[in-house]
């Protein structure tokens, strides 16, 4: 057998002043042959990123030190080099030319003050010695290679002029500029929308095929790698608990943690896993009715200039939500799903539209009131949505005070009961947010939202920031609470697999408008609108192995409309008792 491209054995990495006391990676070993793709899967803190960053030794700059083991890398000239022992000058020659890397956040991973052309050219200048026009031509070719249309013009763009998906392509173009033999991709699609994620995965698959490079793909989403990986390594607490061929690990997991991970990750099952525990009764009044909700933001004009128009963020959105029912609003970033949620809570002033919550407080769009106790919200980031200086009892008291109430013994009893109900110890009341984990904090946020006995809870990407196993537990809690208190949920999410687990009905938002709405099982299993179809086919799934994604370079349409523009009245077509989609031209 020929020597592998990369052979890592017994790698140990530590951090801090005394690295051996603070080991993050504890004896990881694996081999990678040329052209092979290894997926490293694990939850946050498992050491997967540190392992990857140790290979090109970027870990040194983050305060890490390799304290044991070897990383044998077969260089282009056939010699074997132990990267764990290599000095910085040698490493600089290898980084970018033989080992490329792409990162999680394309928005922050490119230098904001340099044009993307300059940043791609840098690789050619460093490793190929190209300058001037030659370097520019090479950079243009590199952009062509990642299928960015109009490459010559885009070279002069700065990163803030491109979307996240485009920037990730630029990152890939940069990383692949010198045809590295190994590409390390650290959660390259986590920050992107699901349809864009599918694009990037497709591109990586194609480029891997074209160049025959090996790839290390780091992810927390075990479903995502099913489409691209040859081998999988599962990491937990700094150790590789299981590794093997893709099918073997996915179908016959040996280690309990792998099994746990596989069962915890919500797998998308095209509507088969949708909830069937709720039946709409026409006679009952809905908990929330939204009618003709429209939110527009005026685009500011130049000096003395007239406004070029408005961003039509949400356009004529309407639905009703019954007590005990979950309506999921899905769509990608910029589709208006969060704006819809915020407008309902009165955090954004709607241009038009009517809401009525629990049939009692009828209010027109112009008098939206954020302190209405009937609707409460849970936000995406549990780390940022709890004031770090307040104790938990003060945090839970906040909504009561905001609604004009007073803190009585009864309120405290309620706090204790709610904490217990969301699965937190009673002594939590005297603690501060930093003493809780991400999942626990989200439970606190849920308890806070329930303090006023709301009838509607708006959950804006409420589980997106959590690790998969924590995610599953929080979803379970939400379902239980819903049944217990008859809560109506408005669940805003981009994650179709999560939506399938919690939604009774789904509204698909595209460019500010609902394009399809209806029963969850029906929408997911039988999507009608072209956008819904694209969205659903882009969802990675453990069943879709070595899948070939279609490359699609369509841009999302601009939402800026000229002043006075009114969109035509939508035409709806019915596809079942509770399933309709917008007719397309």
């Amino acid at each position: 057998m020929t020597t592998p491209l990369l052979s890592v054995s017994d790698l140990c990495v530590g951090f801090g002043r005394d690295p051996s006391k603070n080991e993050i990676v504890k004896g990881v070993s694996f081999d990678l042959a040329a052209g092979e793709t290894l997926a490293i899967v694990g939850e946050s803190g498992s050491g997967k990123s540190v392992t990857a960053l140790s290979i090109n030794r970027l870990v040194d700059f983050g305060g890490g030190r390799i304290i044991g083991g070897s990383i044998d890398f077969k260089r282009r000239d056939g010699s074997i080099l132990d990267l764990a022992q290599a000095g910085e000058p040698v490493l600089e020659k290898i980084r970018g030319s033989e080992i490329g890397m792409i990162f999680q956040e394309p928005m922050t991973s490119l230098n904001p003050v340099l044009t993307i052309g300059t940043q791609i050219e840098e690789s050619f200048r460093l490793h190929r010695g190209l300058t001037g026009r030659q370097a520019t031509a090479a950079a243009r070719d590199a952009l062509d290679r990642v299928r960015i249309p109009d490459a010559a013009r885009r070279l002069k763009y700065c990163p803030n002029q491109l979307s996240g998906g485009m920037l990730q392509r630029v990152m890939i173009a940069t990383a692949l500029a010198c045809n590295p033999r190994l590409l390390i991709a650290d959660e390259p699609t986590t920050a992107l929308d699901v349809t864009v994620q599918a694009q990037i995965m497709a591109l990586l698959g194609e480029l891997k095929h074209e160049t025959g490079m090996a790839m290390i793909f780091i992810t927390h989403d075990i479903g995502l790698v099913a489409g691209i990986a040859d081998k999988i390594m599962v990491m937990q607490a700094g150790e590789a608990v299981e590794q093997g061929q893709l099918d073997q690990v996915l179908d016959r997991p040996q280690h309990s943690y792998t099994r746990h991970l596989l069962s915890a990750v919500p797998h998308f099952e095209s509507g088969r896993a949708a909830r069937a525990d709720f039946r709409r009764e026409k006679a009952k009044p809905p908990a929330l009715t939204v009618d003709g909700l429209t939110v527009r933001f005026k685009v500011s004009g130049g000096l003395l200039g007239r406004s070029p128009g408005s961003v039509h963020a949400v356009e004529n959105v309407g639905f009703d939500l019954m007590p005990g029912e979950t309506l999921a609003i899905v769509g990608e970033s910029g589709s208006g799903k969060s704006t819809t949620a915020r407008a309902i809570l009165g955090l954004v002033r709607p241009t038009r539209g009517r809401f009525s919550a629990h049939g009692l407080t009828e209010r027109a769009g112009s008098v939206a009131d954020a302190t209405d106790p009937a609707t409460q919200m849970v936000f995406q980031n549990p780390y940022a949505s709890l004031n770090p200086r307040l104790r938990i009892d003060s945090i839970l008291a906040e909504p009561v005070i905001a609604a004009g109430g007073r803190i009585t013994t009864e309120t405290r009893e309620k706090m204790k009961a709610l904490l217990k109900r969301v699965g937190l110890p009673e002594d939590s009341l005297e603690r501060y947010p930093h003493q809780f984990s991400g999942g626990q904090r989200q439970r606190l946020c849920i308890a806070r939202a329930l303090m006023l006995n709301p009838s509607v809870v708006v959950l804006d990407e409420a589980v997106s920031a959590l690790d998969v196993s924590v995610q599953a537990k929080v979803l379970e809690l939400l379902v239980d609470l819903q049944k217990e208190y008859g809560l109506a949920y408005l669940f805003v999410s981009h994650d179709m697999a999560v939506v399938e687990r919690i939604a009774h009905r789904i509204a698909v938002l595209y460019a500010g408008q609902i394009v399809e709405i209806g029963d969850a099982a029906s929408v997911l299993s039988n999507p009608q609108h072209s956008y819904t179809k694209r969205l659903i086919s882009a969802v990675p799934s453990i069943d879709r192995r070595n899948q070939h994604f279609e490359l699609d370079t369509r841009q999302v349409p601009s939402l800026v409309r000229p002043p006075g523009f009114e969109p035509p009245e939508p035409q709806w077509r019915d596809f079942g008792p509770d399933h309709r989609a917008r007719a397309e031209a």
Partner: protein
Amino acid sequence: MSYLTRRLLTFPLVMLGVSILVFVTIRMVPGDAITAMLGTEAGLLTPAQRDALAGYFGIDQPILVQYWRWLAGVFQGDLGISVTYGRPVLGVILERFPLTLQLALMSMCVALLVGLPAGVFAATRNEKMSDLGVRIFAMIGQSTPNFVVGLLIIYALSAGFGILPVMGEFTPFFEDPLRNLGQMILPAITLGFAFAASVTRISRSAMLDVLSDDYVRTARSKGASKRSVIWRHALPNALIPVVTLSGVEFGYLLGGAVLVEQIYALPGLGRLVLDAILQRDYALVQGCVLFIAFNFMVVNLLVDLAYAALDPRIRLGEGG
């Protein structure tokens, strides 16, 4: 560009505000120009003579009329006549300004040449002994009043090396550059010392922030050398706070540096303003303050232009 146009339009508004403010405040200070000018002899004037003098300088009119007359003059480039010098105010100011401008420019050069490399150096040696050294030095520089630094420099040079700063009548740069620089270098170092300390501290912390940014990691992953990472990728991103600080400090320096001018016997703007206030030379104080405010706004505008040059996000608008 609309941002810049808007800035340019606020320009006259701010100037108007400043002029009203200074016009009113200086007249609220007890004492009057005639007493200040003539000293005890003012008591010898008959009321009629006093009125005649007041009429000559226009200070017998209601304050609104005075202000209006003065404002009308300003628009014609006439800032009034200085009571102390008996000459047009603008001429007096322009005579002093070159020295102040030169001093400010030289101090800023000292500050940036010393402060920027020191800050960058300290940031790359975070938490090591050399970093600590730079930080202590910067702390001393910031907390020591500049007249103390000035006196210490003069003392060290004269007592230690027998070199005396070039004294005597101030020579403008274009008359005798060498003699001029000999006179200006010590004041510039004195003023630049604290300025350099601030630049060091702010560039160090800005660099530390930037060096942990994602794009710096990206640059390293491309194989960029340490030098290229620091100077090409990190520094341009860290310059914005440095430019902000330098602009503010430079603006202050253009208002004159009273203590340092006093120590080195330099006829700059700072001493001019001080004397004008002590003499109740209304026209001169007004002229100086207006002139200083004008300079400050020009510097601010330059700072904004520098931002736009440094950062395309500002140039093109966020997400543009």
